């Protein structure tokens, strides 16, 4: 164990692999020292495990109806009670983790690279390129996120795929702004000039030299935004434009529970708790990541 640690922390690494593993090890250690970040990691780990092992964990089917067991309060049989069709809420929440995970992953995978690239190109070239790209970004930024997502879903038709596309379309401008701002701070720095003098193409400079410096702040921002993405997805589900019944999407579950909120509180509350918990997990992790990746913003 101690030899592995020494190998990772070696001041004079002997290969590329050792150097990069060493720096990620240092980052991990710093992250794990932050208790809130650890809580965030744990919450998200539970989310991922729940999504992977849903069929094993869930005691009941998430879709199977049992009208004899309608709206039962939480008990040892039904841990979080049942909804108006007699479906076990706990099982539905476990299966819902899959949908939530798919939504946040796909949105991040679509919007973060798009925003990064547009921002980096805009900041690096400046001039007209910058004006045009930032003009487009401003148009998207000027509309409230949820309203824009609603408009897109309404145009594309309700459904989880369209909700993902709509949320991705509304969330890239923020990342473009961040990566442009980062790019502007070092576009004229000497290491970029040196690469140009060495004959590197613009594409190479952007992808190899500029993007790696923007990614850390965008990763932080994406992680912090995950909570917002989950809420937007839940909001679309709540309005009936996201996941369609009988899919166990958390926002849609709250929407169904609204009718019984005074007498059968658990129907709306349990998925609400799940949303809050996962959002909180992403926020904690995002804060921890910011401290590790973005030394500029670190508090005193």
């Amino acid at each position: 164990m101690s030899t592995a640690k020494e190998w990772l922390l070696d001041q004079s690494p002997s290969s590329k692999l050792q150097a990069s593993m060493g720096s990620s090890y240092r980052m991990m250690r710093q992250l794990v020292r932050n208790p809130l970040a650890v809580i965030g990691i744990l919450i998200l780990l539970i989310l991922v495990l729940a999504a992977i092992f849903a069929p094993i964990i869930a005691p009941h089917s998430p879709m199977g109806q049992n009208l004899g067991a309608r709206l039962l309060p939480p008990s040892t049989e039904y841990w979080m009670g049942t909804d108006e069709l007699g479906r076990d809420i706990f099982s539905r929440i476990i299966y819902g983790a899959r949908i939530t995970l798919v939504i946040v992953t796909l949105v991040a995978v679509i919007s973060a690279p798009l925003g990064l690239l547009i921002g980096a190109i805009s900041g690096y070239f400046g001039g007209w390129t910058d004006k045009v790209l930032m003009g487009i970004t401003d148009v998207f930024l000027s509309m409230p996120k949820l309203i824009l997502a609603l408009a897109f879903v309404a145009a594309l038709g309700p459904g989880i795929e369209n909700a993902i596309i709509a949320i991705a379309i509304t969330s890239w401008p923020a990342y473009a702004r961040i990566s442009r701002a980062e790019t502007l701070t070092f576009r004229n720095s000497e290491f970029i000039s040196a690469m140009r003098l060495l004959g590197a193409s613009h594409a190479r400079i952007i992808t190899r030299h500029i993007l790696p410096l923007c990614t850390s702040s965008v990763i932080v921002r994406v992680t912090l935004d995950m909570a917002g993405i989950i809420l937007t997805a839940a909001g679309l589900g709540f309005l009936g434009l996201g996941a369609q019944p009988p899919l166990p999407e958390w926002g849609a579950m709250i929407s169904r529970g609204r009718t019984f909120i005074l007498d059968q509180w658990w129907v709306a509350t349990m998925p609400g708790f799940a949303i809050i918990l996962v959002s909180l997990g992403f926020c904690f992790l995002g804060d921890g990541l910011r401290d590790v990746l973005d030394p500029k913003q670190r508090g005193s």
Partner: protein
Amino acid sequence: MSAISLKNLDVSYGHNKVVTGVNIDVAEGESFALVGESGSGKSTVLKAIAGLAPEWTGEISLLGQSRSHMVERSSAKQCQMVFQDPYGSLHPRKSVDTVLMEPLMVHGIGNRNARVMEMLAAVGLDKRFRFRFPHQLSGGQRQRVAIARALILEPKVMLLDEPTSALDVSVQAEILNLLKKLRREQDLTYLMVTHNLPVVSFMCDRMAVMNKGRIVEIASASALHDGGFIDPYSLSLYAASGGNPDKKDTE
């Protein structure tokens, strides 16, 4: 054939004309210095030659070929630049190895491993520094990496923009000795910007004194020993830096 030849060079940043009517001929293998106070336009001349200050008129030729206003891929193997600030001239997330490998990859040059090792040895860096990141290096070591990066494409002309002014005095001497040794070994031409006259007397054969964007005098480096300047500005610059640097050392 001269290595660098500037004819009637005017350089401006937007509407601001920074350099006016510069004429310099640097012979191959020569070490030439541009001296002057801050803001006299000496670094701008260097940037124009490198292609980083594209708004110029006049003529710039490198090794007999006149150069265009843009950064050219083809001139990368002829002319390279070492920057003033070793903290700003290395990418903070790239290891020494990546920094030296990349120019070779860009130009499709093979046998990279051996070349990188050779270059590290040439600039006096031990091989255990190879996979370190800039934040794990001292200022002098970083400047050695920057010099190695500039030399790895085997250029003939080196533009040195105050390569030692950001370093402390003992390290300055090491870097200057290194530059002198490399020039001797690889038969390089240096065009060096500095405001440090002792550096000029140590490194260079000739110098041009610049003031307010113009060259006021081109003198041999021996003028630093006998004070043989003609222009009043050069004389006052010489006096301000304490006269004969060698004499001062021996006193």
